[in-house]
């Protein structure tokens, strides 16, 4: 008799315990998924016509200008040779924004003194990877930026 009672008790315990866990799971799962944000609210862009042209870049003291490129931030710089080059402006170290240093001929991250050459390569300081380089096309006065096909 006692044994039968305890097995019934066990069954009830498992039943209630399992039911409680399943209920909590059914509440927690959607809540966790909800908290996890969707990929992005903004569409990611692969090509962009810059809202400014060569004269505006030249007018900047640093000969460089940042622009919003879909979800990313880009930077376009005018080299001494007069080439336009564009990169992702987010430093690969800790997500600071890089700037053009025409005096040094580099892209420089002021947060931790990270340095990139004008091909995006990481040359000194903490950055672990090169900056992504964008394709620049000038058509008349318009500048088009495109992501390189991988």
């Amino acid at each position, binding site marked *: 008799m006692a044994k039968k009672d305890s097995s019934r008790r066990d069954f009830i*315990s498992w039943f209630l315990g399992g039911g409680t866990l399943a*209920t909590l799971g059914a509440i927690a799962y*959607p*809540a966790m*998924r*909800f908290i996890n944000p*969707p990929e992005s609210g903004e569409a990611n862009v692969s090509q962009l016509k810059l809202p400014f042209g060569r004269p505006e870049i030249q007018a900047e003291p640093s000969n460089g200008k940042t622009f919003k490129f879909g979800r990313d931030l880009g930077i376009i710089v005018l080299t001494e040779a007069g080439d336009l080059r564009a990169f992702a402006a987010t430093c690969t170290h800790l997500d600071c924004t890089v700037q053009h240093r025409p005096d040094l001929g580099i892209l420089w991250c002021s947060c931790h003194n990270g340095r990139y050459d004008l091909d995006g390569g990481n040359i000194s300081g903490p950055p672990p990877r090169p900056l992504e380089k964008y394709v620049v096309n000038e058509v008349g006065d318009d500048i088009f930026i495109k992501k390189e096909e991988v």
Partner: protein
Amino acid sequence: MSASNSGKDESLISKGYDWIDSRFKIDALVEYMSHKVVPLHSHSIFYYLGGITLFLFLIQVASGILLLMYYRPGADSAYESVRFIISEVEFGWLVRAIHSWSANLMVFGAFIHMFTVFFTKAYRAPRELTWFSGIGLLALCMTFGFSGYLLPWNELAFFATRVGTGMAGAVPVIGEQLLIVMRGGEGVTGATIGRFFGLHVAILPAAFTVLLTIHLAAVQRQGMSEPVDWVNKPESEKKYMKFFPHFIYRDALVWLIVLNILALLAVIFPDGIGVVHWPLGEKADLFGVPPAVIRPEWYFMFAFQALKMLPAHVWFLEGELFGIIAFSVGGLLWAMVPFLDRKSVKGKEPKLVMAFGVFVVIFILAMTIVGYLVE
């Protein structure tokens, strides 16, 4: 669970208990709570209604916090962020549906709770403060509903809020100023969203928490109200159930049932159904034309309909003003019922007060039904 296992659990729990007790001396409190009983009689089922409303409020808090992660107040972002929640965020439709359904069920639960308390005369001394705080909580619930309704900034919400706040403008002397304070300007604009949002997620929750604490503390301190005719009943004939653990287990089961009903409603009707309906629809257009049928939420319908049916002038008063005065007087009488009813404390039937209650119920039901039939 095996015996050795539960022994281990108990020792862990008792260690934790001792740790707290040695610091805060809760033994007396636990001793006090363990004597708490619930009267058993033919209307004992009403004792669950407050708990149901409380449970739905807790769901409101949890789902509201989730919605806050994506909702962005403002004329340019409110509608877009709600659309983002229901179309892009995983289970966003579910969280919004749960929030909306439990809001409606909570108001419904609070109303039923209030009427059962009224008709069982549970408001009578010494529970006046429980009644007053309960009335305050219901008023806050309705303000929650009214302020939350605007937040998606859709067409329906926009016009309903214009009409709803417009009523405040009819209040004598301070009406115009009140209207401007409520709307954050002369019209319903993005500024209104900011105010309603602040009200909905900061001011109301804070006020609600204070009143709820008073309400629950009063219930715990005084225990459940016993039926009026128990005054003359011999102790031996009164039956009780222990609050811990018997009533708590039953409460938990009721909450589980409510949770299941809520989940079913939210999954099957995420946009609501019938008169309880919250489709996102079109974005509010300040220069747009109102939709053919603008209706307030169902718990404002009786007031909305009654004001609509009033003639332009009653005596020397404007119809709307007369309506607002009538509702204020009626509401005040309703709230003051613990003082108006002097009979039930002595175990007698307060016939006049009960007749007033029946009139109020019939009035609310009739006006609500008429409101939905006349379109």
